[in-house]
């Protein structure tokens, strides 16, 4: 996997480079601000860019704007947005057009190296990775809506994992149930939410997000 990193904290940037190099990924560039990120992506055409939301000069949402820009102008490069905080508003802006090849993770997730690299791989492959915290907040924000209220607790768990971008097999493993049981839950969720069942993870996430965005 060919990766570009944009992160203004030197210590995190170097840590990420080390982590990904260790796992045999190719680091095209590691930069510290949004302009350098756009230039690096244009030059290297990587599979995925890891982008910190807060970068110089204003330390607000430079990274987010750059990520949206990248998705529009370089659709072949997936973007994993990486932040100290969860902002549902940022997530909504990021997912506004197309959730394919987009991820939004809390920086804490790098502690779990395997899960982090899985998520990165998923995003690079055109899938989606939303932080459980993002999903929790998105669900919480829309919790009062009818339909969602009709879900059983187990179905909510399945929906949350789906929203994170996981496949049925991964959901089954996470919940310690059979793949068949997950399929049943998914079908029930789609029925209760009034969505068409679909095979690919990506469309499921899109559907879920579309619902979450209202």
């Amino acid at each position, binding site marked *: 996997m060919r990766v570009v990193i944009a992160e203004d904290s030197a210590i995190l940037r170097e840590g990420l480079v*080390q982590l990904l190099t260790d796992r045999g990924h190719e680091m095209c560039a590691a930069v510290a601000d949004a302009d350098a990120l756009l230039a690096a992506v244009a030059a290297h055409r990587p599979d995925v860019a890891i982008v910190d939301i807060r970068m110089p000069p204003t330390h607000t949402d430079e990274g987010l704007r750059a990520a949206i820009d990248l998705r529009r102008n370089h659709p072949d490069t997936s973007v994993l947005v990486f932040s100290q905080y969860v902002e549902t508003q940022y997530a909504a802006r990021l997912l506004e057009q197309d959730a394919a090849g987009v991820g939004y993770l809390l920086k*804490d997730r790098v502690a779990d*190296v395997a899960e982090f690299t899985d998520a990165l791989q998923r995003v690079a492959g055109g899938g989606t990775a939303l932080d459980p915290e993002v999903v929790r907040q998105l669900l919480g924000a829309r919790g009062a809506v009818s339909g969602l209220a009709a879900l059983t607790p187990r179905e909510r768990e399945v929906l949350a994992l789906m929203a994170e971008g996981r496949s049925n097999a991964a959901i089954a493993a996470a919940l310690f149930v059979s793949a068949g049981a997950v399929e049943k839950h998914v079908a029930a969720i789609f029925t209760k939410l009034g969505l068409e069942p679909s095979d690919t993870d990506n469309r499921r996430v899109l559907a879920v997000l579309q619902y979450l965005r209202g």
Partner: protein
Amino acid sequence: MDEMASDLTATGARSPAAVRRMAEAALRAPVCARTWREVLYWLASLPVSAPGFLVSLVLIAAGTGLTLTVAGAVLGVLLLAAGLGLARVAGEAQRALAGRLLGLRLPRLGRPQPGTGVLGRVEARFRDPTRWRAAGYLGLRFPLAFAGLWLMAVTWGYGLFFLTYPIWWTVAHRQATGPHPTHGLAPILTPFPAGGAHIGTLGEAFALLLPGIVVLLVAPWVTRGLTAADSWLLRRVLCGADLAGRVRQLEAARALAVDDAAARLRRVERDLHDGAQARLVALAMTLGMAREKLDPDARGADAERARELVDAAHASAKLAITELRDLARGLHPPVLDNGLPGALASLTAGSAVPVAAFVDVPERPTLAIEAMAYFCAAELIANVGKHSGADNATLEMRQHERRLRLRVFDDGHGGARTGRVGGLAGLAERIQTVDGSIEVDSPAGGPTTVVIELPMHA
């Protein structure tokens, strides 16, 4: 005189120490800086208040008179307005003079909210209490200044004249008895207004030294009494009830305080985000990588790599601790818990440029003021180290009655400014939130002196 009175009540009238202090104060009075500043104040105010009073009085009187005659009403109103405006200008000049020479802290005489339209503007001028108070002040001060300057001329003049009388006597005597004797007697040999004694010999002339000394010892107290009376007029009449002005000032201070608090929180968040938080994430990441290398069957290179990663994580954890500690100290330095003297001593001890510190703060200010005084000192000392290029610096913190005065001096190349941006501007804003003041004297080429005054209570 106030200080002496409070000495007496504080330590008891018979206490030898108090008596000694009184005697010292009395003997030092003719030569102490305060006395000379007060004398200078009276001399300097003469060209300000006398013409100010006379001209504005004439304008106001003529204006009032003309206004009463229906024919000259328009001209009268204009003269009256001009007289009031002039009174405000003269009052403001007097206030500035008292601020500079007497250290009297009074709010500026603000302009009123301007009215709209010609009539509105004229009306606003007439309704402005500041102008009327300024006219009242000038009116009351005029007789005081008249009596005061006469009293001061008599006390200081005769005191100095008696003290130097032998010289005058000798000069006059030579002229009277020299090779070309002038006709008549030595001039002005009897300084007493009512004739008094005739001084015939040099011995008698020397005898006048004693009354000279007595008059000179009394003179500063006369000056001080007159100054106290004028200060009372300045405070009560000129600036007495400028409530609207005070409210505006407090509103501005409150706005600054609120903005400053928000900005400080933002800075803390930024520091946490960029510092300890990022470091802890990196730490967790390194530990995560190490854990992967430490599978039960790991050995050789993997175990070695895991040890390196744990070492890195360990170092990262220690740095995070340091950063958090620095951040916490920036919010409230624990060293302040024992008061300013110790805190400032450890502050100056850590400075790259050698700083001599003098701290004399008998009372403890409130916590907020203490913290602000400390941060001001820290900022100024940091500036000395960063920008001044100085070899030596001095830090003084003293309590002057109800105010805390911080003075930082350095022998660097000067050029410090309290502009719209930068450390000193931020400092000035924070100081304003508690009604403090900052003065920067830093000519190009140096040296630099910064004086900050804070109230003892926020």
